[in-house]
């Protein structure tokens, strides 16, 4: 087990009176791919935002590589939000310039090669690209960094199965092996095969943290099956939908 990369201790975050994170506790080590799994509204995105400094928790300790979220942690965290964040006037090459200027670990050559593979011209303006292509450019930017921590918020939500395969392959082929990838999603079946470890989050709390191999060996279940078991809600009228 590598050194502790993320440490969260009794982390609380409120939106007005609503508790988004309720005394969240966990530790993550470097060099693995971790699934942050939970139903909608469980606090996944809030946790991601807290980890990269977009939100400040009201209470608790958050440490990334031993430091509180700030300039240092931002320089070692590569974040893929669940929305596209480009300015209209920017070309793909402008974004590469920006990343090159601000992140020492950005590999421009790699980013350009990835664009070439996808036949994305770097002199194209972001606003004329399709939504799917814009998302791919964003993924390329994030995965072209040799970061210590990759925070990927719902990277495969709302895309077709072929695009999901592309996204997961890009993540697997390009992340820094010494770093940790934290993928938040509720599409477990698609990501399960790439995960080393899982964090189950519910109502702003980590309710279970386990290595994927242990789940399979000790419980004889897939992560997807375990997820359905943990987060099952009985529909109105009783019974289960039994849909996979």
């Amino acid at each position, binding site marked *: 087990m590598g050194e502790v990369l993320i440490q969260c201790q009794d982390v609380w975050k409120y*939106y007005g009176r609503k508790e988004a994170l309720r005394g969240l506790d966990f530790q993550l080590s470097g060099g693995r791919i971790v699934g942050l799994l939970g139903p909608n509204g469980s606090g996944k995105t809030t946790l991601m*935002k807290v980890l990269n400094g977009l939100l400040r928790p009201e209470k608790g300790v958050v440490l990334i590589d031993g430091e509180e979220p700030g*300039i240092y942690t*931002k320089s070692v965290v590569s974040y893929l939000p669940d*929305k596209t*964040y480009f*300015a209209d006037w920017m070309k793909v090459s402008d974004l590469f310039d920006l990343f090159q200027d*601000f992140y020492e670990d950005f590999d421009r050559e790699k980013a350009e090669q990835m664009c070439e593979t996808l036949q994305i011209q770097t002199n194209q303006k972001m606003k004329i690209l399709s939504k799917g292509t814009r998302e791919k450019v964003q993924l390329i930017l994030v995965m072209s960094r040799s970061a210590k921590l990759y925070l990927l918020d719902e990277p495969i939500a709302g895309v077709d199965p072929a695009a999901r395969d592309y996204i997961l392959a890009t993540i697997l082929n390009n992340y820094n092996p010494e770093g940790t990838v934290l993928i938040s999603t509720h599409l477990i079946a698609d990501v399960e095969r790439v995960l080393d470890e899982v964090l189950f989050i519910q109502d702003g709390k980590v309710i279970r943290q386990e290595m994927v191999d242990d789940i399979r060996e000790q419980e004889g279940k897939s992560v997807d099956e375990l997820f359905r078991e943990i987060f099952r809600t009985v529909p109105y009228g009783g019974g289960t939908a039994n849909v996979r």
Partner: protein
Amino acid sequence: MLGKLIKYDMKSISRTLIPLWILAPVISLLFSISIRGLVGTAEYAVQNTLENQALIQGSAIITGITTLVFFGVMIAILVMTVLFIIQRFWNGLLKEEGYLMFTLPVETWELVVSKGICATVVSCVSILVGVVSCVVMFMGAISGFDELWNGIGQLIGYAVKADGVMIWSCNVVLFVLLMIVGTAESVYRVYAAMALGQLFEGHRVVGACVSYIGIGIAWSLISGIFTIIVSLALPDTAYYLTEDFGVFGLLYMLVLLLITLFQIVIWHLMTVHILSRHLNLE
């Protein structure tokens, strides 16, 4: 890092405002020429007792068109400048783009200062372009423009003679500084209002407008009380106005400059505090 941020913020204006900045003086020059042409045509017609209405009408139409274009460009510069200031902060920091900007390894104050410097420069250039364009336009539109310049020159000469070159040079420098700092204050006030507005979940734009009005009222109250105290404490200002105008102007602008700088500091600290502690991205 601040320099790099400014570079990107300045880059974003190149496609919108720069063409307008070039266009405005060119259009005003055309306007000026067309006015001269119209006056010349009319005078020629009168002198030669011509009744060629078509010539005068044609000249008038050209003047009318250039007038419309000129005012159109000036309004466009004004609107685009205001929009630029608001949009680059609102979209650039408080909407989706904020996910990129706030995860860059830079301090929040650097993001705000970068936007502030860029918006102030853009506003000052727009004002300068507007003034230059108006001067160019009036050169053609007003007969006896040379006399006007001479008159202004004489007035300055008289003032310099009365108070000395030093005082009036300082006055000019302070006036320019005051204009720049005043512009920056207006920008920062809008930023503070937007930072407050983003806290209003679901009513962010309304929140920003209400905050802007609220900030204005609060500052008017504070400055009103301050002015009353100062006017009670200070001796008769009318004396200085009539007897020692140069020195009075200098002191007045200096105080105003310090107050405006103080305002900038308040709005800046307020904006940075809200964005670093209570950021509420869409």
